[in-house]
């Protein structure tokens, strides 16, 4: 890793890229969380301003600054995404490992639950849960958290099952390793990267779904700045040529999702022994 001659290998490039992406996402999160609601207050004297020096992303039908609303909305989305994927991944880890290790009836039951959740359109399930809990922040969060675990559960279960029957794991037992040692030295290092990548790749899903149900009117309420709310409002005005209301929030949402996705894919490459040393 010779920084002076700018001959970075893939590993360094990926690391630099990941740090930049993380700074962007963390910046939006912190900016949004610390933002004073007065900053994007209603001001009818400046409604429907196109993007310009005063308002980079323009203003909406109530004269609110779109840039600040976007940042605030996206930071809410990121919080929901993080909490939802942490909860989902815990469910997935517990269910997946238990299914693979205990087997039998429990395994069938977990598989049945996974099939049940995956057999239903994801968004419908999400809507039902959110609606049942009275919409708002709580409804969205519980809804997103409870519907994102099935895929990851499958992955974790398959990984644990596969590695348990690997020849080198069997050989390790015969060479005198204990169950704990094998779990720590062979199984965990194999499952953990797959699991962590799964968690990171859950973020974009969770954020997307939060925005979707809010857009459809079953999520966060209209006065809260959320990307979904902003996008659904913009639909009313896009026909009259107010393009900036949809374009910039859309781009920011897309950018956040693609960055998370890219971080996940990069980690996959770094942790994979076949591509980690390029």
């Amino acid at each position, binding site marked *: 890793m010779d920084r002076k001659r700018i001959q970075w290998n893939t590993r360094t490039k990926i690391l630099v890229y990941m740090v930049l992406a993380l700074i962007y996402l963390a910046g939006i999160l912190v900016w949004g969380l610390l933002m004073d609601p007065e900053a994007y207050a209603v001001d009818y004297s400046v409604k429907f301003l196109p993007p310009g020096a005063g308002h980079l992303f323009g203003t909406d039908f109530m004269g609110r600054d779109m840039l600040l609303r976007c940042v605030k909305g996206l930071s809410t989305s990121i919080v929901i995404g993080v909490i939802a994927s942490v909860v989902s991944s815990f469910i997935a880890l517990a269910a997946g490992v238990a299914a693979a290790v205990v087997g039998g009836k429990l395994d069938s039951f977990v598989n049945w639950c996974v099939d049940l959740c995956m057999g239903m359109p994801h968004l419908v399930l999400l809507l039902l849960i959110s609606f049942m809990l009275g919409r708002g922040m709580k409804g969205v969060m519980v809804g997103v958290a409870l519907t994102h675990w099935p895929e990851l559960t499958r992955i974790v279960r398959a990984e644990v099952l596969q590695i348990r029957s*690997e*020849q*080198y794991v*069997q*050989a*390790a037992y*015969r*060479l*005198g*390793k*204990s169950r704990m040692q094998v779990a720590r030295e*062979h199984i965990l*290092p*194999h499952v953990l990267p797959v699991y962590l990548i799964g968690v990171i790749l859950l973020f974009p899903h969770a954020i997307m779904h939060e925005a979707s149900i809010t857009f459809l009117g079953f999520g966060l309420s209209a006065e809260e700045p959320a990307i979904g709310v902003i996008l659904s409002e913009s639909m009313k005005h896009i026909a009259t040529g107010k393009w900036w209301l949809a374009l910039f929030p859309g781009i920011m949402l897309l950018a956040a999702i693609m960055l998370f996705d890219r971080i996940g894919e990069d980690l996959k490459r770094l942790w994979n*022994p*076949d591509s980690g*040393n390029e």
Partner: protein
Amino acid sequence: MGRCAVSMQLEARHISYRYGKDRPWILRDVDLTVRAGERVALVGPSGYGKSTLAKILAGYIQPEEGEVLWDGRPLPKKGSCPVQMISQHPEKAVDPRWKMARIVNEGWQVDGQTLQDMGIEREWLKRWPSELSGGELQRFCIARVLGPGTKFLICDEISTMLDVITQAQIWQKVLEAAKKGHLGMIVVTHNMALAEKVCEKIIELPALTAR
């Protein structure tokens, strides 16, 4: 194959095995006794249960009926096993996330003499398994199981995927190591010529009528 009074021997008693309750028997009532220092070949066509028997004898899988005894006692479930197996696929028998130095020392601290005997170059120790060939990996797998606790080797087609020259080299080294440690050996192979060359006794697995 009656039971001998000699203490150090690997003994299989009435071994039966099948893959699943409603599947046909792969092995039915197999008896086998091999003394320490003795070399026996197991031959037979594909699908006759040679590899399955090898795995049972090394304790990788438990027989449905019967038992495997070493020195008159069942194989230990915990700790280093006196009966070790070398498999047909060395690339599957090593953890792809470990470097060779860690892999070869998993069971015991391999000494320089063993590495030299096996023809392992120092430089290979720093590599990942994906950076070595099958024959090179197989040497590591053999060195790995030659620890002081090992009394018996089960070689399950260990040279099938190698070219003839490497095969000859590997067998020469395995036989040297076996002589040095007075190890008993069971050699699973398709190759009659190899069986005759390497072993003192050849056992053919019978076909099961149920198949």
